[in-house]
């Protein structure tokens, strides 16, 4: 019974991976641009850091990188990630705590400039585009601050 279940789970995982992969495989060539791999992995419910992502890409790349990742190599690596539940999602409360660390004065919000500074200077820095996009979505226009609790609620998804 357990074997059957495991098989069923794996084949369903395979189908999910294939679907996500195919969204970016425009010509049905069974390969995608390496720059889209991050998106694919994240859309499957994983939260790799940039470093972890690069590691994974290195694993699935061709020996001589072509700029494309083939499905044959991607499937087993990704299946492993999903089965092992690597790169687990970040629970909402942990996320809010993270914001609270940055919000030293415990105001309940962060100024736009504050957040910008942290995002572009700390951790795995955002590019200019990334931070501007985040601000445009996150900013409460009237007060020019980010109420991070609301933001987290707005942007958290239920994972499959």
């Amino acid at each position, binding site marked *: 019974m357990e074997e059957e279940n495991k098989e069923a789970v794996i084949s*369903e995982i395979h189908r999910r991976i294939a679907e*996500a992969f195919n969204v970016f495989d425009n*010509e049905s060539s069974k390969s995608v641009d390496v720059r889209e791999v991050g998106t*694919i992995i994240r859309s499957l419910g994983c939260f790799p850091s940039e470093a972890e992502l690069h590691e994974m890409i290195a694993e699935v790349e061709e020996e001589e990188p072509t700029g494309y990742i083939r499905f044959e190599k991607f499937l087993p690596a990704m299946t492993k990630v999903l089965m092992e539940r690597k790169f687990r999602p970040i629970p909402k409360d942990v996320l809010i705590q993270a914001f609270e660390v940055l919000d030293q004065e415990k105001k309940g919000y962060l100024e736009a400039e504050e957040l910008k500074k942290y995002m572009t200077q*700390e951790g795995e820095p955002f590019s200019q585009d990334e931070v501007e*996009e985040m601000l445009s979505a996150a900013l409460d226009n009237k007060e020019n601050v980010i109420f991070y609790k609301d933001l987290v609620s707005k942007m958290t998804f239920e994972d499959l």
Partner: protein
Amino acid sequence: MGCGVSKSSQFHVQRCEKAAVLIQMWYRKYVARMEMRRRCTWNIFQSIEYAGEQDQIKLYNFLGYLMDHFTPSSSNLICHIFRENEVCRDAEWERYFCYKNIEIPEVYSGPHLTFPLTASQAAGLVESFKNKQQLHSRYVLQLLLETWKLLRILPNINRVSTCHSKEISICGDLHGQLEDLLLIFYKNGMPSMEKPYVFNGDFVDRGKDSIEILLILFAFLLVYPSDVHLNRGNHEDHIVNLRYGFTKEVLGKYRVHGKRILKLLQKIFSWLPLATVIDHKVLVLHGGISDATDLSLLAKVDRHRYVSALRPPKKKPGSEDQLSMDSDMEDDSWISRVSAGTRRRASLTYMKPFASRNDFQHRSLQDFSRHIIRPLREEPKDRRRQAEFTLSTLGHLSSLSAHSHCAALLLQIVDLLWSDPMSQDGCIPNEVRGGGCYWGPDVTEQVLSKNHLQLLIRSHECKQEGYEFCHSRKVLTIFSASNYYEVGSNRGAYITLGPDLIPHLIQYQASSMTRELTLTQRVGWTEHSALKVVREQLFAHRSDLTGAFQEFDKENTGMISLNDWARAVEAVLHLGIPWRVLRSQLVPNAPDGMMNYRSWFRELAIKEPDTEHIHQALLETVYRHRSTLETIFRIVDTDHSGKALGHAPAATVSRVQTRSVLSRV
């Protein structure tokens, strides 16, 4: 930081680092999720768009098959459908297109035109259309006639130069979106001697102001014939227009003279040039190329005989050895001498010998599309001659060598208008569109170097940023209809090219509202539309889907797992949509991964269909094929009166039924 940093502040710094990393990880995941959704949405729109084009081609091959295999006497209907110019012969053309007896009522408040047109009149026309005015049909016909006269003396391939430091502006698909054209003129200036333009096809269909766009482009063409260049697109085709909205638009705006206008446009479309070459180095055409593309051949072909990519050129009966020209220019008069009564079109595609009735019944529409262009393209020369031989014994065609030559040229033109680039080398039939091919970087290299060109500019495909390079930047796609799929779906763009021949790209998005939307909102809006379309598809296949679900629900509990749902839906619809990715949007109520498919259908229904008189299954089928049915209706309804033919042979649905069925969907 001074010395003596305390442990607690060091700790704090570390915590900040960690917090930042966490937040960044989470946000990147969010963005990736949005990107995935955006891509899915895009793919949905594209596959439905191309599936529509495919259907179109299948439909016409099907009707073509009927044409070829039913003798004239047995089916007046088929002849009627394809009867092209029997109404208009010889001198009737003159009377038919004459605008002189059309009176302008005093109450008419739209623009007035006098010929020859001046630049200020052309600019005035733009202004009038901006103010939502409509040009009177008298002026429309007059303008179109002048355009027709001009186009007939233009070569197949426009040759343009950037000498005198002129910068050339190149626009892609406009698809009836007047706002985008106005935006381009606003940003870039209107066409003039100092500001030459190339418009790269697909001016019409889908958008609601196709005729206004045409009138503007033609007006500027007349005023600046050396500085405005129009390339034909695959939508400059009256048969495609039947399905994609242009025909409907014209008939709606010009109730009395619409048919006449469309007829004249049919001729004009066939006379549009096929391509433009700038400085002998940059090739601009609408769709693309193939490994068969031969520019010197294309420069010589009689382009106007290829009225529609979906129909091969007419042949004059009685002329044995050469195909005649549609000689509509005699003694400087534009009166056309139409070849009288062309009964049967040459069968472009059907190489097999006469099939029996039984064969026909077992064939699905799908089969016919396989016989379109691929057999011709793939058959090596000797096999083709063999096929020709078979045909000659059946006496189908009067001139075979001419036929295959003619077919080869048609293929080339179809390639020019319908092809798309792909990333792999080679050249394969474009099955998604049903016509043209997919061509690879090696073909680009081949065609460009053979013709001493350095860049290919084409359109035909919607791109999110309005443009896209490929094939090592040797191919540039330019698309000028912003928000094409939905508000916020994509930007439009145009190119300016100076004597250095380096393309400069200018992007825009009509509707200021969309610029302020965040990524979330844009994706959400477009997705909403796409999902609506998907839900409609699901609803239209309700019976089949229910059957498929029941396969997974042997005990008839009404519940199945989400995994089974996804599998069943893909098996029935074959749309290649990532169901699992979209699952949460399509099946919102699924506690514990199980869903109730009966209540799901109820929720899905957009509106309850009226099932009083019409059987459920029939309604579904009709709804599914409504687009195709509408097209058939429009073909059959040749006098555009809304009434189909009086006598009702088995092949058509009678007037009353069609109307009422269509109105219910």
